């Protein structure tokens, strides 16, 4: 049943027990975004230093898809290079929009894979993307505010 493709155990698990839920006290990136069509909102707080995401947390309420996506995202990106984060966001976006994402498949990452079913539910893509969109915008604001090498692209890893 298509529905089971969407509501995979992993998602429901993250929804019930969200990881990194809360607000960082020492965040240097902070952004709140709303899904204009449903009112769901997310507050994302990150601590970025030396080009790495040192810590991250999310708050807000929403549906299974948006909450699970936020929870998984925080797990994945903690400790990751900012450039890599951007890459992953792009891969995730491709995954939930098209169902195809070579890069994700190659990683055999079950947590990300679990979102592949979203592509069958185009109205829910926005839910899956909310946390990631917030993340990207937050990083962009941060970059503008702190235009040092951190935010640039020393490794060339970012496309």
């Amino acid at each position: 049943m298509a529905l089971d493709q969407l509501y995979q155990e992993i998602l429901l698990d993250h929804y019930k027990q969200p990881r990194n839920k809360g607000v960082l006290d020492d965040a240097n990136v902070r952004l709140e975004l709303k899904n204009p069509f449903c009112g769901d909102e997310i507050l994302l707080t990150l601590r970025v230093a030396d080009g790495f995401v040192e810590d991250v947390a999310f708050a807000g309420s929403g549906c299974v898809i948006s909450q699970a996506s936020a929870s998984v995202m925080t797990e994945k990106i903690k400790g990751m290079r900012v450039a890599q984060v951007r890459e992953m966001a792009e891969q995730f976006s491709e995954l939930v929009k098209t169902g195809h994402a070579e890069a994700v498949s190659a990683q055999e990452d079950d947590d990300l894979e679990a979102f592949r079913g979203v592509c069958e539910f185009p109205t829910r893509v926005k839910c899956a993307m909310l946390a990631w969109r917030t993340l990207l915008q937050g990083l962009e604001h941060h970059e503008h505010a702190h235009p040092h090498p951190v935010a640039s692209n020393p490794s060339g890893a970012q496309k």
Partner: protein
Amino acid sequence: MLTDLRKEFPLFSAAANRDLVYLDSAATAQRPQRVITAMNDFYAQDNANPHRGAYRLAERATQHYEAARAKVAAFIHAAAAEEIIFTRNATEAVNFIAYGWADHHVQPGEVILVTELEHHSNLVPWQMLAQRRGAILKYIEFDDQGHLRLDQMEERLRERPRLLALTQVSNALGTINPVAEIIARAHEAGVVVVVDGAQSVPHMRVDVQSMQADFFVFSGHKMLGPLGIGVLYANQRHHAGLQPVLYGGDMISSVDYHHSDWNDMPWKMEAGTQHVAGAVGLAAAIDFLGEIGMEAVAEHDHTLTRHALEQLQKLDRIILYGPRENHAAVISFNIGAIHPHDLATFLDQRGIAIRSGHHCAQLVMRKLGVAATARASFYLYNTLEDVDRLIDGLNAAKEYFGKWL
């Protein structure tokens, strides 16, 4: 109850919608073939730019357009066709009142009164008006059954507000406001009243004269009419005070290098080429509703709503929002911890289309303390069976999500 209407609506016979239970008419209704045919006939026989041509084709187009205006006037019992301005939708109509009337009449420091029940379309224009004019926006709250606090209204009216904007029927809670009484009280206090009829005109007999509305707005697409056509009713007593909002072709009487004069009402409010086919389609929708009779429509909706409320109440862990009695054909609810989006997706898999979200009424959501609700709304093509399928679907959803949520 009305029966057999479903077959008049081609959308329900489309292969993709064979089993569709459409419970989102409060967002937009479906159209009977007759409305579609009326537009087709216009395009295929009588299409021209109205008001502008000396040839017969243009005259036919003009007659269609102005006949539609007269039909709308009769439908809501306006005193004259000139009181009917065609707009894109109810939203634009409210904005026209804000820019065309209120900007010229509301003074800095004056109070503008709205209610917590309002759809964003009858709220944000007043927020922005208050900002532009330095006016003060105040609210009438609703109580835990979704009824306006009329005691609070009386208090507010003592502050002599300039304008009161309120909806006749809430699209988020299903509250039916006693607009005639409210307007009578407001008029005693010298307050001009704007009524949002987007959710009332489709479902009940509306008489703008007997309710004494100063301005009244609604959308064609929620009452079986086409998209892209709405109505602003402006009582004649405000015509001199109503200024054009959009400028351009057809709304002028003469143009010079640095000065222009306006056409008469209602044309001064209709700039550029209008959606004539939309007006024609709306007239056909009014004919359709008229033949059924608005009393019969209201009765049908009422029967469905009563049945739905009865059945919903029986569901375990259901939260029903809005009034317990005298409920319009739109029901907001939540079930346990299931998020309305997840519920909507689940039901959609069973061919049941409900809305989920804030329904463009975020103040209502705030007040209820939720981010979103699920919403089922009914119209004349819905059946008791549709309601039963909704209930079955909700039971199944509880089972599906129950183990997790």
